């Protein structure tokens, strides 16, 4: 006996759900392209800085690196890990709490660990 009810989709429903899945997959690939782009920009900024090609100061580069990392992580969580879908309220709550503490702990370790 099974607790799952088998529901057969009609051909129209099935083709609709397939089309939706394909569209979702396309947006996933687009997000992947964006992530690769951000990574490329991050690395090239640093390469350029090392080889004195472009004159960005490191006080510009470091915050930008952080921003790009945060965006990438957001994309991973919300698209690749499907946190944008329904039924993810609890995961969101715990991941955000984790992220907040995960920000606080490194912050204290670079400020109030004396030498």
């Amino acid at each position: 006996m099974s607790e799952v009810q088998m529901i057969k989709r009609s051909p129209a429903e099935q083709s609709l759900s397939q089309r939706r899945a394909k569209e979702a997959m396309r947006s996933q690939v687009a997000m992947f392209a964006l992530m690769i782009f951000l990574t490329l920009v991050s690395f090239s900024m640093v390469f350029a800085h090392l080889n004195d090609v472009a004159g960005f100061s490191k006080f510009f580069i470091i915050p930008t690196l952080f921003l790009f990392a945060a965006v990438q992580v957001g994309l991973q969580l919300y698209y690749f890990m499907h946190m944008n879908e329904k039924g993810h309220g609890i995961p969101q709550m715990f991941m955000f709490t984790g992220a907040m503490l995960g920000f606080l702990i490194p912050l204290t370790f670079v400020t109030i660990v004396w030498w």
Partner: protein
Amino acid sequence: MSSVAQKSGFGATLWDWLTTVDHKKIGILYLLGGLFFFVLGGIEAMIIRLQLMTPNNDLVSAGLFNDLITMHGTTMIFLAAMPILFGFMNAIMPLQIGARDVAFPFINSLGFWMFAFGGLFLNISWLFGEVPDAGWTSYASLSLHSPGHGVDFYAIGLQIAGGGTLMAGINFLVTIINMRAPGMTYMRMPLFTWTTFVASAMILFAFPPLTVGLFFLTFDRMFSGNFFDHTMGGNTIIWEHIFWIFGHPEVYILILPAFGIFSEIFSVFSRKRLFGYTAMVFATVLIGFLGFMVWAHHMFTVGLGPTANAIFAVATMAIAVPTGVKIFNWLLTIWGGSIKVTTPMLYALGFIPSFVMGGVTGVMQGAAPLDYQLHDSYFIVAHFHYVIVGGVVLAIFAGLHYWWPKMFGTMLNELLGKITFVFFFVGFHMTFLIQHWLGFWGMPRRVWTFMDGQGWNIANLVSTIGALLMAIGFTVMLINIIMTTIKNERVGNDPWGDGRTLEWAIPSPPPFYNFPATPLVRGLDTLWIEKMEGSKEMITPAEPITDIHMPHGSIIPMLMTLGLFIAGFGAMFHQETSWGLGVLIFGLAFTFVAMAARSLKDDLGYYVTKEQILQDQENIKRGRN
């Protein structure tokens, strides 16, 4: 299956308990394990007090004294208080939300065995004669230079036990999130369930830092790491931060379930709805949240700078607000209630003044300038014993009396219970109240002995006599437990007569599937609503009785943990012996094989048939008449 064809005999019973995945049995295992370690920690405490009874005493050596204080603290926090609370959570929380089991019965069992083997590992140090001696906080410079394997036992033993705690925390969270009965919304959950939820969430976020910190300590001591060794560029303050990032939430992990237990008891024995339920829930969540923002108040004297100290001081004092909300709500619950002073209620009534005193001294230490004066003095010892004993231990005793009938089906003797309370309560205040003054008079904590003529003699003597009274009280309780078990007078569903929550609607102890039909919850204090409506069955079913899916028992959790236990010894001796590394690898491989066996073999559980449930129900009804 298991209820029809139960084998009897010692071997079968033992096997049943070793392989059980039933949350009620695991709850009992946690409770018994925790009580065992509570006795161990209590004996250590008694020796400490006897050593400090008179000046220049030499009952124990200075080294042994350090072993005793370290093991007393570690044992009481990790191996006594938490497991006993886990025992209640396991046994009661699923019943309160109308669930048949926890979300992950297998992991539940794994969590218990990791606690048991971790605690065993830690205490085997006594047999080796190399005992952890760097304090329960194990501050790094000291713990790095502690000779022998003492601190190794601490690091590895706690690593194993801590892993079990983390699993238990996740398990409770998922149980509460996913397995509530129909109608049991979040804001209808009994407060003990709520505090279990918040405490488990805190475990989820507080134990990973402990894991990391213990790994660092293990690496530094056993695998030539350099995290804390300043000559190699390391930093001892990192240990303090990591330890307290874990350690401060830890005390809230202990006290929140205690609050939950008392909330239940106040409401039941005042025969009133809990006053300000919503505010109570909100305060619980707020305490849980703020609990993570205050760890550096343990480190005021480290020299973090005035800005950091000020921030952490303010955050610390802020916690007094939600805690105060709770205290007033309890008082207002009692006010105007029809009060029955039973043993659990006696503990609850004693808890309020005791805990308030501990809380107030906490705010005193939260004021950073004053903390410079109080730091490392007996005032600190007095404070944390007031919150831990006056809060957590009183709650454990209260809960033990309150839920004993539900867990074991018998009722602890009320007279002996009250005698226990009087001895313990008087002894507790006698032991620790005077220690506030000892602190003011300059007695430092963690000293092996003290000189005559400093005005500390009488106070220390009083304190020791108080400790003896506590020991007497606890002994009376053990006698009570033994007598009750021998008499074995079975009780019905609701032996207190005033139960408000779902666990009192089913037999004591409940059948292994808990609820024949999942209950329908129609409001806060579910059972009370049924009682007020004069309902005969005490449960409105949400579904007809059907076959119930149950998990199989398994020995694998114990084997997995055994592997870790063996690996621990390998890690500890790998530097000085040739076999250490081999044992380490063997232990880990053993665990891995056990895990793989679990993963590769599909275990889909089995079904209890409808006929069998109806038969059970019939038997219960006949037994009642």
